[in-house]
């Protein structure tokens, strides 16, 4: 390795790390990225992108199964699992190649290996336990991401009991599948395998699925999934997984400590994530770790001068777009750029690509009430939206929550077709600090599902037209 001195070294090339590196290079910093596995990180290779590819297959298949509704006769449609998975891998590979190209174009040095802080601005890179090089950088951004959390007694084996990683490359279609955890990751896999014909059971410890979403949305999602044939156990834990004869017998325990068992072909564990804080040289530094995540200030600075952390390695929400944005803010702050503002987590949208899709930004109604706001809440169902009906997607809801006193949009919650593409409209509105007036004055094109966004705001103030 010829070059060892850099202005900035980034450990990890996920959506946080590679974006930070490119932005730094744009600002004239000599930048290196250390990546131990795939450029693009989990997001591109084992997360956001390959799951979306699989879910696209699920959507197409669902549509084909309903083709007759649209006047099309299709016979003998079936899913080729291998081709589905191959396409998912091909898309991930293509995008990873894209990241490689972008880094090269921006003259970012990519170093293959595992990065570890060595103190005094030094970063040791090892490959197969051999030291490849030691970099010196004035600034080091840790963007090592996170991995699936495991619970005692519920350890994945990669064969019968999967994490997201195995679930992304299934070799067989499980007839009966258990998904533990109903957050975004769990629900997306549940939705995918359910659509492709598996008998899916979802277990959630909380009293509703998609627990970070607004309760009303959770309940609508649950109804939709049940209608599709999913079994959902809420307020339930999995106390034991017993493997025998290529099957897994799960013991469930509900809130009243009542136990029951059921047997599955495969189990997917999706019970949260833990930060990758180990073996990156944090020991003996002033970097503070709390509950497996690195503690940072509003500009991603750790307690150790010159060391920063972004993305899933730090606090929630654990989303790719949060990581990227943090990376940019962190780098621009280092470079002394003007107009750099801390991230406002209330303006970060979250999307879940199950069917029906779920998307939200800001506070839930319960959280807003808890914070003492007096609320104006608007709701608009897709059944009142012409485009949704034309698309054959009449099930959905857009809910908006305003502070009655100031008209501030506190939160927006959506379920239904294409809502993951719609939520950014409210994201912009929130970022620009619009009030209900501005949203009422905004003109939404007809016919689009986005009109439901307008109507929901109108409904909050008693001016709704189409219900």
């Amino acid at each position, binding site marked *: 390795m010829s070059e060892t001195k850099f202005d900035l070294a980034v450990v990890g090339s996920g959506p946080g790390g590679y974006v930070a590196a490119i932005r730094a290079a744009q600002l004239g910093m000599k930048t290196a990225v250390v990546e131990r596995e795939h450029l693009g990180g989990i997001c591109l290779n084992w997360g956001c992108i390959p799951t979306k590819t699989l879910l696209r297959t699920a959507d197409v298949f669902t549509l084909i199964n309903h083709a007759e509704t649209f006047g099309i006769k299709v016979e003998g449609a079936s899913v080729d699992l291998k081709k589905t998975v191959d396409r998912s891998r091909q898309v991930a590979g293509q995008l990873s190649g894209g990241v490689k190209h972008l880094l090269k174009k921006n003259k970012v040095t990519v170093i293959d290996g595992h990065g570890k802080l060595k103190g005094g601005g030094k970063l040791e890179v090892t490959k197969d336990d051999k030291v490849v090089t030691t970099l010196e950088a004035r600034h080091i951004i840790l963007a090592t991401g996170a991995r699936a959390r495991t619970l005692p007694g519920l350890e994945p084996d990669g064969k019968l009991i999967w994490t997201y990683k195995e679930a992304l490359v299934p070799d067989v279609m499980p007839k009966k599948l258990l998904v533990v955890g109903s957050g975004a990751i769990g629900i997306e896999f549940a939705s995918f395998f359910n659509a492709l014909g598996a008998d899916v059971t979802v277990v959630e410890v909380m009293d509703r699925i998609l627990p970070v979403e607004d309760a009303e949305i959770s309940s609508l999602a649950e109804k939709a999934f049940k209608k599709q044939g999913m079994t959902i156990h809420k307020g339930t834990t999995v106390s034991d997984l017993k493997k025998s004869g290529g099957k897994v017998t799960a013991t469930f325990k509900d809130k009243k400590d009542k136990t029951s068992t059921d047997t599955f072909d495969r189990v997917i564990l999706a019970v949260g994530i833990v930060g990758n804080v180990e073996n990156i040289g944090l020991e003996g530094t002033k970097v503070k770790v709390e509950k497996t995540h690195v503690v940072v200030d509003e500009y991603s600075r750790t307690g150790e001068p010159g060391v920063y952390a972004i993305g899933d390695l730090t606090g929630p929400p654990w989303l790719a777009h949060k990581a990227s944005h943090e990376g940019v803010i962190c780098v621009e702050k280092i470079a002394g750029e003007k107009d750099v*503002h801390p991230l406002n987590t209330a303006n970060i949208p979250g999307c879940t690509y199950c069917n029906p899709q779920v998307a939200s930004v800001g506070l839930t109604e319960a959280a807003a009430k808890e914070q003492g706001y007096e609320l104006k809440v608007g709701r608009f169902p897709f059944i009142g939206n012409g485009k949704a009906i034309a698309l054959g997607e009449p099930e959905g809801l857009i809910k908006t929550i305003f502070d009655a*006193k*100031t*008209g*501030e949009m506190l939160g927006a919650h959506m379920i239904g077709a294409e809502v993951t593409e719609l939520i950014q409209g409210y994201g912009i509105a929130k970022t*620009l*600090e619009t009030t209900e007036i*501005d949203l009422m004055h905004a003109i939404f094109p007809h016919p689009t599902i986005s009109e439901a966004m307008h109507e929901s705001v109108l409904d909050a103030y008693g001016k709704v037209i189409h219900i």
Partner: protein
Amino acid sequence: MPITITMPALSPTMTEGTLANWQAKEGDTISSGDVLAEIETDKATMEVEAVDEGTLAKILIKGGTENVAVNTPIAILLEEGEDASALEGYDAGSAPEPEKEKSGDSSKEEEAPKKKADKDEPKKAKDDTAPDVKGSSGPAPVSKKGERIFSSPLARRIAANEGLDLKAIEGTGPHGRIIKADVEKAIASGGAKAKAEAAAPKAAQSAPAQPQAVTPPPEGDYEEIPLTSMRKTIARRLTEAKQTIPHFYLTIECELDNLLAMRKELNGRSDEYKISVNDFVIRASALALKKLPAANACWGGDKILQYKDFDISVAVAIEGGLITPVVRNADQKGLAGISNEMKELAGRAKEGKLKPEEYQGGCFSISNLGMYGIREFSAVINPPQSAILAIGTGEMRPVVKEGALAMATMMSVTLSCDHRVIDGAMGAELLKYFKGYIEEPLTMML
């Protein structure tokens, strides 16, 4: 394309300044780095250097013009090969009326819509009355100078609800836009101060030139002396200090004989420094604060900001006023280091060459009038600081020692405290530590 030279912002908080004089004249050939003009801000005079090269074609704002808003075009530079004809039809943002432009972005793309917005504003925009904010999140308000105040709809709504005047609020959003957080901060930091009904004194703050209602001057011959930027700042800030900070005062006597003996010995050892009593005072203050970090704090409206560095501001009298250069981390510096740094800072202060970061910050000031024979006095706190120590002269005084009269060199010091941050007992404790260091100066060496 002719290049427009605009009024620079010499510090992050500067919104306007006085274009003191031009060092270059029309027709001069300018190279990058040449000094074009001198700008006077609240506290210092600074030079404007040329970035581009060319010929200074036209001076748009004459030397001696006050209250020139940041980013106002002040001159036009012609690039090599261009002649005066290039100026024809060239519009430097209708520059000659600086009071119409303000801190907007000076980039060309922004100019056009902004000017249009100016024109589109109703006539009342130019009116000096407070902007109409009573509507909901309504139209963007305009400042008294006619330019649009950029603010988010939500910020406007909250300000209207609270009866706040947006003019009085500093925006921290993109391009200085006023956002919700700014309005909330204004509410938290004594919203009453920024309430629209109190807009007059607040306006005086943003435009200190406007005299506040003062008693008419007595009859008689007098010479009218215009206020310098520094005088305006002193007037504004110290008035604010006396009106808003609940001051109280604590005086204590310190015996100086040990300190003077030590000073004599130290100064006898080398010619590389000459330590003054004031240098001891700076270090003793920093060490006393370090012992009582709760006092190393500023009032933050809805919170107290306790600082981690022990920075000591020292009032230095300069022509036309005073300025307070800061000795940073005085607790970590030796006496010789403090002494040399102070000499250097005071020297540049007198030349008006201090950079803003050299006189801003810190929670604690020292004001020393001992050299004038002043025995003791009470100083006004320099906001946003929370304390100032007034140092009197060191003089021989009769004192009672072990039941008998004796002579000792004594110095009276008076601490002015902001009661919102420092209570009586805390202030007293701080002075006790200070006295300890002054009377046993060897302990300062630990």
